Structures are given as C-alpha cells and as structure tokens.
C-alpha cells in the first residue's frame, strides 16, 4: 500500500518540475479519503506556488568587491602567471575594491592638519619649536592611523577587517601594536580572505626579518592551502630562510596540504638558502 510520504514526495517533485506527473487517480483518492493529508497537500501547494515567498534578498556590492579581490590575489599567487585573468567586464571591481578599502579621506585630513600646523609654526620665530611641534604632530597622526586600523581590524565584519588590513598597509606600517594584531589575525582570523590580505600586505613591506619566526609559525596554523601557499611564497620572495628541521616538520605535518608540500619541495633549496653555499 502506498504511504503518505510517497504522495507528498510525488507532489513536491511535480511542483519542483522534477516530473510532469501530478498525483495520479489512485493517489488522489487516498488524499481525498484523508483530510489530514489533504490539508498537508494544500499547504504544500500554497508554499511551493507562492511567488512572493521566493523573493530573494540581494547581497551588498561589497561582497562582489571582496570576492574579486580574493580572486585577484589567488591569480597573482599562481606561478607562473597565466593569461586567464579576470574577465574584462569584472576588472572594474578591482578599482571599486581599492576605492572601498583605501579610506583616503581620513589620511588626507590628517595630512591637511599636519600641513596647516607646520605652515603656522614656520611663521613663528622659533625654529626648534617648529621641528618639535612637527615631529609631535607626525607622531600623533601615526598613532591616530594605527588606532583607526586597529579598530577596523577588531570589527566583527570580515569586510571591515579587510578594509583594516588595507588601511594599515597604506598608513601605519611601523606601529608595533598594530603589527602584533596583524600577526595574531593571520593565525586566528576565521576569514581566509582576511588572512590572505594580511599576507599580501606583508609582502609589500621592505623588511620582515623581525617577524619572520612568527610568520613561519603561522603556516602550521593555517587550515587553508591558499594561505599556506601564500606564506611560503612570501618566504621565498622576501628571502626568509627556513632551517632544515622546520622545513622537515612542515613536510611531515598532516595539516599542510599536499600541493603546498610539493611547492615546498620544489623550492627547498631557495627556502633553506643552500643554493648560495
């Protein structure tokens, strides 16, 4: 005997367009003989056929911007670079990203304040006072920039934290507290996009030797092969040497992706500096 689940399944498959066969006469007779089942079938028809229930919400444009930033980072991490770049029609998103994440107005305002006070002080007779004032202002602006960046980096939204990474790279590279926070996020942030952006930001710095041990430690903490790969690439790019023991530990680490291990093996000589011996 046919059970009620089969009839409900048939109805839903029909309403979903999986089959062109609605309930047959036998099923229909069962439905009509069971008021409870009939009410369920009518409810299913109401829910499945109501167009207003299927109205979708639109995500914000920031989601697109973040995705294309991530894709761009991933493509630039590919070696060698391929011609398979982002489609032309999407390239404008990268411009949007830089506009969204640059937060230039704040920095421009800070610069304006600096210029104003410097100019004002230059018109005063005491030259040493000008230098002291100017230096203090620069320090205050640097502190302000670091505070803004840290506030953004501690935000609950990954979008805001991404903006914080970009802002810190552009405006506050030398703040120790900020650098510590970036390294902490590189290990603990739940968004791979944020961690990738941090690696990208670090890659633009001239000197990473003071944080190289923390960087290498963070590789083992990554659960995303893209971030693992980016960190290895960063080590190669910045000539951060990894000793043989650490490298062997990475190669034996179960949490490191196979592709990443292959990449480490391919670049082992460069990573350990043995090619220069």
């Amino acid at each position, binding site marked *: 005997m046919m059970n*009620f*689940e*089969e009839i*409900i*399944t048939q109805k*839903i*498959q029909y309403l*979903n367009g*999986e089959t062109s066969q609605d309930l047959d006469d036998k099923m229909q007779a069962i439905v009509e003989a069971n008021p409870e089942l009939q*009410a*369920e079938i009518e*409810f*299913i028809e109401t*829910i*499945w056929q*109501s167009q*207003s*229930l*299927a*109205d*979708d*919400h*639109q*995500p*914000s444009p*920031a*989601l*697109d911007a*973040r*995705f*294309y930033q*991530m*894709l761009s980072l*991933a*493509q630039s991490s*590919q070696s060698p670079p*391929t011609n*398979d*770049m*982002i*489609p032309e029609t*999407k390239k404008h998103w990268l411009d949007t990203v830089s506009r969204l994440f640059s937060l230039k107005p704040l920095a421009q305002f800070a610069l304006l304040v600096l210029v104003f006070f410097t100019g004002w002080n230059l018109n005063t007779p005491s030259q040493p006072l000008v230098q002291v004032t100017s230096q203090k202002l620069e320090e205050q602006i640097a502190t302000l920039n670091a505070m803004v960046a840290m506030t953004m980096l501690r935000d*609950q*939204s*990954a*979008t805001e934290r991404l903006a914080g990474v970009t802002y810190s790279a552009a405006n506050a590279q030398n703040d120790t507290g900020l650098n510590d926070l970036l390294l902490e996020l590189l290990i603990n942030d*739940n*968004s*791979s*996009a944020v961690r*990738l952006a941090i690696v990208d930001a670090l890659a633009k710095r001239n000197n990473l030797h003071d944080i190289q041990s923390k960087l290498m430690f963070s590789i083992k903490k990554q659960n*995303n*092969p*893209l971030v693992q790969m980016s960190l290895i690439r960063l080590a190669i790019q910045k000539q951060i040497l990894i000793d043989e023991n650490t490298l062997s530990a990475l190669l034996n680490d179960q949490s490191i992706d196979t*592709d990443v291990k292959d990449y480490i093996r391919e670049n082992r000589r460069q990573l350990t500096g043995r090619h220069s011996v």
Partner: protein
Amino acid sequence: MDEKATMLKVKNGQLGYLAELFENNRNGLFNFFLRMGLNRALGEDLVQETFMRVLAYRTSFKAQSSFKAWLYRIARNTVADHFRKLGNQDIHEPYCEERIQDNQSLADKLEKESQQTLFEKALASLPADQREIIILSRFQQFNYAEIAELLNINLNTLKTRMRTAIAQLKLQYNQLNGKTS
C-alpha cells in the same frame, strides 16, 4: 558551458572561471544562509568563505556530483566550522530566531502581517534540520536524490523527514495565522 565543466576549468588552474560560478550562485547561497537564520553581514562573510574554500579545495572536485551539490556541501561545512569556533555544541540552535510559546497572543500580534512574514517566522521556528530540508527543496531547487546525498541520508529517511518538516511548518504557520491547526 555547464557548471561542472566550468569548475573543472577552475580545478585545472583557470581561476578566472570562478567568477562565472560566483555570479551564478552568489545570490542563492546568500539567501540560503539568510533563510537558515544568519544575519546579512554573516551571510555575506560565509558566501565569501565558501568561495574561498572552493578555490582552496578545487583539486578535490571529482565531478561525480553536480557543482551545486559540492558547493552546498562546502557551504554547510563552512557554517558548521563557524559555529564550532564560537563553541556551540549544537551548531544549528543559534539560528532559531524564535520559538512560538504563546500561540494565541502571537497570532493576535501577527494578524496583519503578510503571508511572507508569517512563513518566514514559521520557518525560523523549526528545528534547523527540518528547516534545511524545506529550504533546499523549495528555494534552492535541489531534488530529493541531491538532498539525500548532501545530508548523507537515504531516500526513505528523507521522505519521512520531509513530511515531518512540512507538518511542523504547517502547524507553526497556522498558529501564527491564528488558526487552530
């Protein structure tokens, strides 16, 4: 080109094709997260994280199932990981926006609300596993075989669960609508 073929190109290193998959699935995935009870900001974060994982684990795409089924498997794991990090044992429970306690008073309050609002509230009041089955079938256009595969259950179990979920949804909907059953 179908999505499976597109994903195979991504798997083979032509990463630009991921944009096409993102454009096709972004809204569906975002609304899946919203209907599962996440807020907009978190929904967007998890869409981003899901596609990040698609990129990271592209080499594990076997093309045995559809790209969509694979994508939603990753999406479900992404949500689970997110709540595991927050320390919730039951990963789904935080999604439940409300449970209907006082049927009559709620029905009075909601008398003038639209069918859509009532439906959304009734859906949100369901346990997450029941809610997910209805969302996957009604809104994400998964067929029974795909849902069964995604949830790792057999077809008969799914049919039973679907009927239970619909009965529960109907009950909640009618209570919100001021009907007795």
